[in-house]
């Protein structure tokens, strides 16, 4: 696990960067068994078409560039691409958008990804505290974190008991428990995510400065979760 993740990280550092693009971040997560979508990085249009076929339409495309950290602002995330024809068009468009946004953008490739079923959104973050080192943050996505600041923290590494308490700590927990008549969310999957992120950060302590899994879709009980987007920043 560690070796695989380190390979990605060292590659990034070698290229003089401290910020991983989504694809790289997800490689690191994957190395620790975190659930990421079946995505592939296409360097050429042909590759993109091939991957889309393998994944099955509709697909999403996200352009990977170290210079473009806010992909939505740059309009380099294109969703729900239904046919090879559409993919070809969008391939042009996505590159054009990237050029417009940052003419100097180095393009590492285009991530071809399956369209995901929407789930309840959670966020898992990692920060480094001057006193206690790495801390894990957990909360529900969107307004819950941004407006209501409804989040909870734990110091890395955490135990399973810590993970379960984190989930129940937040005020919006009833949303995960299924307060409005929905099925409860897959709490075990969240516990698993938290524990694996904790392990990853604990192992890669010396490298990782910050990390964000945002959003993660959590599905109904027994149906797991998937990391939709991720960001890792390395120590300088």
């Amino acid at each position, binding site marked *: 696990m560690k070796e695989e993740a380190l390979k990605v990280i060292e590659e990034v550092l070698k290229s003089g960067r401290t910020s991983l693009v989504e694809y790289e971040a997800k490689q690191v997560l994957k190395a620790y068994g975190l659930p990421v979508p079946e995505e592939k990085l296409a360097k050429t249009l042909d590759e993109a078409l091939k991957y889309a076929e393998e994944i099955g339409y509709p697909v999403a495309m996200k352009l990977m560039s170290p210079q473009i950290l806010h992909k939505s602002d740059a309009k380099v995330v294109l969703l729900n691409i239904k046919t090879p024809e559409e993919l070809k068009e969008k391939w042009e468009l996505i590159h054009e958008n990237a050029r417009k946004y940052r003419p100097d953008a180095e393009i590492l490739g285009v991530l071809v990804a399956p369209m995901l079923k929407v789930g309840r959104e959670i966020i898992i973050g990692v920060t480094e*505290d*001057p*006193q*206690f*080192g790495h801390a894990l943050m957990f909360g529900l996505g969107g307004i819950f974190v941004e407006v209501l600041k409804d989040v*909870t*923290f*734990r*110091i890395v590494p955490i135990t399973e008991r810590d993970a*379960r308490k984190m989930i129940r700590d937040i005020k919006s927990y009833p949303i995960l428990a299924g307060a409005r008549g929905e099925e409860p969310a897959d709490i075990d999957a969240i516990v698993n995510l938290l524990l694996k992120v904790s392990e990853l950060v604990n192992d890669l302590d010396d490298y990782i400065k910050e990390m964000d899994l945002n959003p993660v879709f959590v599905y109904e009980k027994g149906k797991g979760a998937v990391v939709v987007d991720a960001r890792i920043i390395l120590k300088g």
Partner: protein
Amino acid sequence: MTFDYFFKPKAIAVIGASNDPLKLGYEVFKNLKDYKDGKVYPVNVKDEVVQGVKAYKNVKDIPDEVDLAVVVVPKRFVKGTIEDCGEKGVKGIILITAGFGEVGEEGKREEHELVEIAHKYGMRIVGPNCVGIMNTHNAMNATFVTNAKKGDIAFISQSGALGAGIIYKTVKEGIGFSKFVSIGNMADVDFAEFMEYLADTEEDKAIALYIEGLKDGRAFMEIAKRATKKKPVIVLKAGKSESGARAASSHTGSLAGSYKIYEAAFKQSGIIVADTIDDMLSMARAFTQPLPEGTRVAIMTNAGGPGVLTADEIDKRGLKLANLEEETIEGLRSFLPPMAAVKNPVDMIASARGEDYYKTAKLLLEDPNVDMLISICVVPTFAGMTPTEHAEGVVRAVKEVNNGKPVLGLFMAGYVSEPAKEVLEKAGIPSYERPEDAAAAAYALVEFAKAKGVLKEEE
């Protein structure tokens, strides 16, 4: 590791002991005169006799072995004094003298140097810039503040002044401590090591920490995790707000760190977090009682209002009001007047005598739905009541039932309640004056019961 030499040394040298009442060395030596477990030697470069006791020019001149030195000499003599202590074979140093790490970088270097000297001789330093150490169980008051009341709480304060303030406050309020440590700049010994030591002592039922900032958060957590498996640790952290945290960090020189993270670290280590000084004290005082197996509280009272206020505070702490068994309700109805409320909170009304307190407490403690009991008494309004009969009734019931359920007193009539409080506390039942304090105590018992696994948490 044993810090016995800090709390029950065989011989103490007060270096800088003085005959001048305006000097700290005067107070420190005076306060140590009652020390029971060993001898106390004054060391003074000039005076032959200090406060009627033969003094020595140097610690090395003392004919006996000395394991603890309290150092109150002017700053320029500290370094030499530490060397002397080392040569003498002293084990622990309480360094009261100030002007080191708290004044800046130069001071930090100096205190680091002192620690190096001490370690060279295998000595440990508490301080510098501290008020000292007390152990009320052997009358060791190696501080320049008044004697704390004897009790069961080991209290470590990062602020000497606040620590002293709390001693004066608790003397007034009748709250006791087993030990008090003013930890000062933590140049050498820090919270973690004391916590580890105190986790294994007999006479300390709970450890209370007032923290402004830590030096090594990770090490603190590691030791706290072990300590809280044995003994409750309660923390009051200054700097909860952003502005407070900024002030705390500039004050202690420790790195800021957000309170959210501190709180996470505390929770994760099994530490119980207090919000205020009274919270901390109320929580720590609870641990003369056994741990509850659940969160259901029964309240008994001789006036409705205080019962309701207490129910409110219990709710605020996330605890529950017990639903009494039909049998209990019938039992209460059989002897309480018709105006009494026989549901929880049980309002025995103002006419309740000691016998009513006894019977009610007994029935409530025997109820399988009750995990904890809070016994309230407002002014005994009816003439002819003794000031202690209510408390005595509760104590009698607890002794008879003796089924390991925790009981807390809440006697809310200022000085009128003092005799009753004494009766309760003598029986190991902590007695509070404010509903929020009793609720904090109940909460702390529940939290520690959870951490120990006595109380199953809902998944």
